[in-house]
């Protein structure tokens, strides 16, 4: 078995090599993309100031501001070198749109909100969608299945923000069940239990809309996988063994049908930061999505770079975790020895 261990180590090293190169490529791409785009951050800031002041700024001031905000006068290679150096020290620079706040501070403030809202609702959507999907795939053609499956197709195709806006109007405004904006009761003291309960209350509607519009995709995927898996011999044998239906479904059919879903789940988990833009814009939620929107509006390079970096790393980490989890739940991946035909 030592050769197996070595093979596994080699496979692991290969995986790791991919993640390292991917991370580097992502970091570089994040550096390049904003710089390849027209426009510069100082321009946006100056413009805002001039609108606010109702008059133009003296040219030397504009020049000085441009310099202060890290204008594009440096050699791009030097910039890149500094950028990499700063990354290793955890310094993502200073946001130009919120000068002089550090990007890490901004992301640090916003990240927990996004993680909480998007993380919880993504997990919920996955669990609900996968669960119902497994039931639909297990008993295809039942009333539940014939209603839910086409419905999920529809739900998966409805623009998310459209549903969210409508939900906001109906449940928060017309019915008044939920607050209209924000991530918590702004009048509550952050150390009080009331504050934490308000966090729940404020997060409920955004979370429900996410679950509502994203569980359809999970449902369909799981339904078809379950349907395919129930055709497998080992499910037939499990039935032949006289095991109870629930046991056959969960231990045999769903357990195996879920494996491909996990990869998707990892990607979805990693994508939550990027996916949060729409949700957080609709619900004025104080997370990374709102921050990204703001960064784009302000042409805030450092902030954009920082968010992209975080997002990419989140996807990479989620994938790495998924790989690891996959190895745990699917023993076949553990000893992927090569075989000749």
């Amino acid at each position: 078995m030592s050769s197996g261990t070595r093979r596994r180590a080699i496979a692991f090293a290969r995986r790791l090599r991919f993640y390292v190169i991917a991370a580097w490529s992502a970091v570089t791409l994040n550096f390049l993309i904003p710089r390849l785009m027209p426009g510069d951050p100082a321009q946006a800031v100056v413009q805002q100031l001039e609108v606010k002041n109702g008059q133009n700024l003296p040219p030397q001031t504009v020049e000085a501001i441009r310099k202060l905000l890290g204008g594009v006068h440096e050699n791009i290679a030097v910039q890149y070198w500094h950028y990499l150096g700063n990354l290793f020290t955890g310094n993502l620079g200073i946001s130009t749109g919120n000068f002089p706040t550090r990007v890490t501070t901004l992301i640090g403030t916003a990240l927990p909100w996004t993680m909480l809202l998007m993380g919880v609702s993504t997990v919920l959507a996955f669990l609900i969608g996968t669960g119902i999907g497994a039931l639909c795939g297990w008993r295809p053609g039942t009333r539940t299945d014939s209603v839910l499956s086409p419905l999920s197709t529809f739900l998966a195709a409805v623009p998310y923000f459209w549903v969210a806006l409508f939900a906001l109007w109906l449940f928060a405004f017309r019915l008044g069940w939920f607050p209209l904006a924000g991530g918590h009761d702004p009048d509550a003291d952050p150390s009080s239990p009331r504050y934490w309960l308000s966090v729940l209350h404020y997060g409920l509607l955004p979370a429900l809309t996410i679950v509502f519009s994203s569980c359809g995709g999970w449902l369909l995927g799981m339904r078809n996988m379950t349907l395919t898996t129930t055709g497998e011999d080992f499910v037939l044998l499990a039935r032949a063994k006289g095991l109870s239906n629930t046991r056959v479904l969960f231990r045999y059919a769903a357990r195996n049908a879920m494996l491909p879903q996990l990869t998707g789940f990892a990607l979805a988990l990693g994508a939550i930061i990027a996916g949060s833009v729409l949700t957080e814009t609709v619900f004025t939620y104080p997370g990374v999505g709102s921050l990204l929107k703001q960064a784009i509006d302000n042409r805030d390079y450092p902030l954009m770079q920082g968010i992209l970096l975080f997002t990419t790393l989140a996807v990479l980490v989620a994938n790495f975790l998924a790989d690891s989890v996959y190895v745990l739940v699917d023993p076949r991946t553990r000893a992927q020895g090569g075989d000749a035909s």
Partner: protein
Amino acid sequence: MGQPPDRRSILRAGGALSLGALAPPVLAACGGPASATVPRSDTVSVLNKDTAIVRNFNPYSPSNHTGPMGRYIYEPPLWIPRLDPAKPQPWLASAFSWSRGGRELTLTLRKGVRFNDGSPLTLDDFVHSLDIPLKKPEFNTAGVTYTDVRATGPDTVVLTFDKPAYQDLYALGQLSVVSKRQLAGHDLATWNNPDPVGTGPGRIAAFTTNQVRIRLRRGYWGGDAFPTRNLKFPSASEDTAKLLLLDGDLDFASIAWPSGQTNFVDRDPAQNLYSPLPSGTIAMIAFNHTKAPWNDIHVRRALSMAIDRSAVSRTVASGQDPANLAGLAPEVYGSWLLPEYRRSQPLDVAGARRELAAGGWQIKGGNLVKDGRTHTVSMTSIADWPAYRIMSAATADQLRRHLGLNVNLQLQVGATFDSHYNSGTFDIQYRLYSSGTLYQFYNTLLDGQGMLPVGKIAASNQMRWKNADTDRLLAAMRVTDDPKLIASYAASLQKIFVEQLPVVPVLWECIWAVATRRYWTGWPTNRGIRHYFGFDAAAPEAILALKGLRRSTT
């Protein structure tokens, strides 16, 4: 609160009941009144549409998001009233006077002013505050133009200018006076100043990512006569703000609301208020004067006459009325405005056709044709603001209907739009124009001295207007503070503006006051406006406006 429950609170209770089964603790905690410490009825709630999610109150940051909150903390040396920007008023400087032909300005520091940390405002603080923009031009976010600051007495400061600067006071209304002691040891380029010290009445009482609370202190130099000491500034998008207003969670917001009359005021006319306030800003059509056919006065006039401004106003439907011929809002520039220019340009299709004919223009296939050359009409407008999308589309629609002109309308985002404007690479732009004083109004728009060629980024006269009379009048206006002379220059400039039509004013732009009288009354309205409020107000106006509020008795 002692009021009979309205429909909304009943609905909310219903919602609470039906949801109660799902999540009882959540609603038990959140269904109650807004705050345990400060009742909602004792708080003035004003929208902060400049979403601040970090505690950044550095007043010199080119991009700080202090929004309306900063107005209650930092104060300027002078108050430039928006309703009469030509008449600066003393504020932290209790007096000011010109000398050396407008090259020296002496400011007298007000006595007895204390910062909100209790320390007194000294001349040292004052000089330091005025000096920062000189030492570090990157922090000259107010745009001051003096070149030297000097304390000349126990409470006087002299600002020196290179050239007569009678028209440059505007920037002193934007400057924040800060505590030298608080700033000491901090690098303005890295410091957020989370607990700002200023001379204003406010102090940060609570800061969260969604809302900032300000508590007004006692001992403010301007007096204690505030209707309440509690202000809060919830952050929300404009869309959400409308819902918050309807829900009574916001008292005031400065946002445009298409069909605000029917959709907001008419829902509860006793309580709801939607008021477009004049601001001195216009929505106008700007021409590139380096390009044919826009350098032809006949074409500009024809365009102006073919626009049905009241129809455009109705289409926009958020309160912008047709602008007058001079483009000068009577509420702001009323003392200068010539009576014959108080009217708007009416729709005059026949006149427009006559003008085109007079210039030798024909319209063929939707395009302007003269001497066998065909000119297409390309109009750009700003995509970021929905009102401009509608205004420009409605205008294009009218030119098509009235003159048979095919307007190729393009919407651009702000940055692109402005960069085309600044470098003169546009045909016609539909844009907002705002400038402080009357001088600035004409100077920024039309000053031909040092005009930059097309392709260079210009900060003023982006339309490349070249007119010797205009330049002469502006030069003369710059160096005098004689009201009579200024009035005569202003009249001449108005004439040029109306007769030569370097731009076509279409509608007034407004500052909106959307308010409910549920808890407070005395909001600024277009009838009897005294001071602005909210996001668009300068610090003195915001403080004065707040003082004008009264508790609602209904």
